[in-house]
């Protein structure tokens, strides 16, 4: 028991590295917010483009969404971080992590929002178009608001899943929570910084997990 406490909850180590983990938490929060905003915006925009049903637009979107949903994000992160410099593109680890996770979230968000758009009754389009609204206005002001409402639960779940993947930044040296914790762990030869990291993740993400439960109940389709 003592060995266990010393390894995972060593008071001295905890005290020493708490500021570092807090700094990491700042990075994680910043990354998460940026990724969620950019990913959902991009995914929604792509789903809207797809609604025009122009093959030259839809096909690349579908191919992109399928590839980015199929590949493990870590593969993409490593590929971008170690591959891009060889073709002259130098990006910070923070930027690489942001870009890749945004693109992954956008791929999922595109599919989710697209499902919402196609699930919106045809009569909504017809009612709007019959009053002279253009296709674009109908999409933006009649169909999309309904589609987004419908897909809030899966979109929230996906957003939470992606933000947790910021922990993958560790492998390319992003100083987020886990990045800081693993550094501290190797310096201190003690697992307590990792405990701190776990606590930090729970404090950061538990509210969102609980909120997603609430959203799911709130926006559940009637009778489901």
């Amino acid at each position, binding site marked *: 028991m003592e060995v266990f406490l010393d390894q995972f909850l060593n008071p001295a180590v905890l005290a020493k590295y708490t500021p570092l983990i807090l700094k990491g938490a700042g990075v994680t929060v910043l990354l998460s917010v940026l990724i969620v905003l950019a990913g959902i915006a991009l995914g929604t925009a792509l789903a809207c483009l797809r609604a025009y049903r122009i093959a030259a637009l839809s096909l690349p979107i579908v191919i992109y969404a399928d590839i980015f949903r199929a590949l493990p994000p870590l593969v993409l992160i490593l590929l971008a971080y170690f591959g891009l410099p060889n073709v002259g593109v130098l990006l910070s680890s923070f930027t690489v992590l942001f870009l890749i996770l945004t693109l992954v979230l956008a791929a999922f968000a595109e599919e989710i929002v697209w499902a919402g758009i196609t699930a919106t*009754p045809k*009569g*909504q389009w*017809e*009612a*709007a*178009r*019959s*009053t*002279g*609204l*253009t296709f674009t*206005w109908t999409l933006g*002001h*009649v169909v999309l*608001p*309904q589609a987004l*409402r419908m897909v809030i639960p899966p979109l929230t779940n996906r957003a939470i899943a992606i933000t947790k993947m910021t922990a993958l930044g560790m492998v390319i040296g992003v100083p987020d929570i886990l990045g800081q914790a693993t550094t501290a762990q190797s310096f201190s030869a003690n697992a307590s910084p990792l405990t701190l990291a776990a606590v930090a993740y729970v404090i950061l993400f538990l509210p969102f997990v609980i909120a997603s439960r609430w959203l799911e109940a709130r926006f559940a389709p009637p009778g489901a």
Partner: protein
Amino acid sequence: MASVAASGGAADAAALSVRALHKSFGADEVLKGIDLDVRRGEMVFVLGPSGSGKSTMLRCCNRLEEPDSGEVLVEGDRLTGPGVNLNRMRQRIGMVFQSFNLYPHLSALGNVTLALRRVQGMAKAEAEAAGIEALNRVGLSDRARHYPSQLSGGQQQRVAIARALALKPSVMLFDEPTSALDPELVGDVLDVMRDVAGQGMTMLVVSHEMKFARDAADRVIFMDGGVIVEQGPPEQVFGAPTEARTRAFLSRFHG
């Protein structure tokens, strides 16, 4: 008539003219040449068995369904053919659907004002005043802030009528406006339609409300198999139909 129509917007043109309208879905020819003029202020009822093409005909009249050939004119202005500004023309044709199709995320007033603001470019206050006026005409100005889910089916359909009315269309199309309603709610919607007709609106109505057609319609059209089989004043079509198909259809309704 056709030459008047071609000149565009002539004062004596019919509110709605349909000429040699054809429409097929694949090999299935659903409209086999429909010719129809609806005079200004006229209320025309369209009857016919299921699948006879009534909805398709109505939907071709605002090009929710694209006709294969033939033309549609509103007050002499072409709706079909090259160079037509469809979104502008559609403001002159109100449509009321069987399933209401209200926007669930907008209030009754929001439903009515959306096109006023985004299509006709009215400012918010102006659109809301016009929206309230339209809701008033269907007796629902006190429900302006209610959402569709907070309204009965009959009230929803009346909001849908107000949404179409607010654009001050030249003609209104109704596709079975009471078929999705509980029987006790049908009367309110029919009353509103009667009021709207009484105020001079031109209306083309697909409906099975025979009793209402009998005393409110100016003309009744019987469609079957994609053609107009018979038409005339309601007392004639209901009282003394000349075509066997009309008689067979009406006998099923015990009209």
